[in-house]
């Protein structure tokens, strides 16, 4: 069929790319102007905002906190999510489909509602503290809201369902026959996982973990609502700087740093996954 496919591609591509470039250009340009207060920007180009982000301890601490919480969340999501994804992918009964459907449905619900549930669970007189008190594990109710630990659980809820869905697809691509072969040749279950399943799944695991880490770096809702203004990650700081302080220049510079760290991580992850696949002799 002779159709000029570029004619079909170009209109939507130009609209998408136009909005992408125009909006990104405007805010990145804004980040090079000093704030004069009440939302007004200076008239001279300056690196002042970026210099402050990397020298002022307040911003450096926020950047470090964001990276740290994202790394911890990714590790915990992997530990909780990988066995679940593996078990579901290897189930032979209809339970596999049912569990997968439950996880997909959970991923449909907005994080704002999940955080609402977490706020109830973590409240000073909430079910978690009541249970801990009754069991005598703590003598006084724990304060979880407004703490980094609570935010970490919130971030896990932001990424967990999505992570399991990603890994489920990865594990389905590993033929079950390879695992059965390893076992019939006398490998124990642990040895089979260590020598067969894990190496084959590794590129997919690394890629999924990097996606989760990236999602956490940009996650706003969990940190804002569970952190209650006390856990200032970069996304929370951006929203406060722009909406509450109306310092658009500084807000744009912080957003620029967040965007750049994400782009850098994406390039790194592409490279890492390609190397892993090449090392295992798989086609990229």
């Amino acid at each position, binding site marked *: *069929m002779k*159709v000029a*496919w*570029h004619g*079909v*591609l170009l*209109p*939507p*591509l130009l*609209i*998408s*790319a136009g909005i*992408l470039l*125009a*909006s990104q250009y*405007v*805010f990145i340009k804004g980040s090079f102007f000093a704030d004069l207060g009440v939302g007004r920007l200076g008239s001279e180009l300056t690196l002042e905002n970026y210099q402050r982000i990397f020298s002022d301890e307040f911003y450096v601490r926020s950047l470090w906190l964001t990276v740290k919480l994202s790394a911890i969340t990714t590790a915990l999501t992997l530990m*909780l*999510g990988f*066995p*679940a994804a593996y*078990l*579901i992918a290897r189930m032979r009964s209809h339970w596999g489909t049912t*569990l997968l*459907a439950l996880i*997909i*449905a959970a991923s*449909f*619900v*907005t994080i*704002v*509602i*999940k*955080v*609402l*549930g977490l*706020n*109830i*669970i973590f409240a000073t*007189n909430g*079910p978690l503290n009541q249970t801990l008190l009754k069991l005598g594990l703590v003598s006084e109710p724990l304060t979880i809201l407004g703490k980094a630990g609570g935010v970490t659980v919130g971030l896990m*809820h932001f990424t967990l*369902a999505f992570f399991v869905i990603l890994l*489920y*697809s990865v594990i389905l691509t590993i033929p079950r026959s390879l695992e059965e072969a390893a076992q019939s040749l006398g490998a124990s*279950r642990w040895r089979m996982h260590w020598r067969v399943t894990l190496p084959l799944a590794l590129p997919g695991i690394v890629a999924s973990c990097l996606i989760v880490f*990236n999602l956490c770096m*940009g996650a*706003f809702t969990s940190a804002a*609502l569970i952190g209650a203004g006390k856990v200032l990650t970069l996304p929370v700081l*951006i*929203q406060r700087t*722009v909406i509450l302080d109306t310092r*658009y220049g500084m807000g*744009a510079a912080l*957003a620029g740093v*967040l*965007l750049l760290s*994400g*782009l850098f991580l994406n390039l790194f992850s592409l490279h890492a996954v390609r190397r892993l696949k090449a090392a295992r002799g798989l086609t990229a």
Partner: protein
Amino acid sequence: MIAFTEKRVNRILAWIWMFCFLAFLLGPLVVVAGASFGENPRGLLLFPPAVLTTRWYAGIEAGYWAALLASVLLASASVLFSVLLGVPAALGLVRTDLVGKPLLAAALRAPVQIPAVVAGVAFLQFYYVLGDALGWYGGGTWTGLLIAHVFIGTPYVVGSVTAVVQRFNVRLEEAALSLGASRWSTFRRVTLPVILPGVYSGATYAFLVSFSDLPIALFLSSSEVRTFPVVLFQAMDYDFDPSLLAVSTIIIALSFVAMLVLQKAIGLGSLLRTGK
């Protein structure tokens, strides 16, 4: 006597792990649903509820219904435009012989890589500049929010449809054309039915990113333009009304119904191929 073979122990451990995982994943949703039936005084949320009541469902303010309806309409409009942009983009992208295809694909996928907070800041400032130039200020308007949501939704449609089109046999279209079908009827009767699962799955994700979005809507909202996530966020930040638990429970229930409908209509497999 039950024999504790290694296989049986492994199976029991596996189910214990699954149970803990599901309890963690679904816990907050169960708690929201449970608390929505509780006789709790304003502001103090207790779970499990001591006395069951449906008063929070009866007391849902008109404003909350309006915000929920607005969110549904916004997400639906966002799906419509995302599909109108994304389907031709995906078809063209797979079949064009333009140079630099990977770069064009990356440009179409880029919005997914931008954190929502960054997109919110960018659109807010973009609309200020656009307003100064054209006299149309997009911040705080439904159109402005819709454009931003179409922007983040389109890549999902492109991704899902691309995945399907790549497996599509062009000979089917050639056969239809050589048998005398017009180009439009070839598209409608041959191409469309094949790519439809991809369109549905992309549309589902485009709907979800719009319906769930908080960060972008926070930057672009105003007193007239407030989606349900924004209303819920502001209530949790300031003064909480328990009937919001009731609305949230309705959304949770609808999410599970939507999943069942999609499972029947296109199957779970199509939903997994997000092409992200």
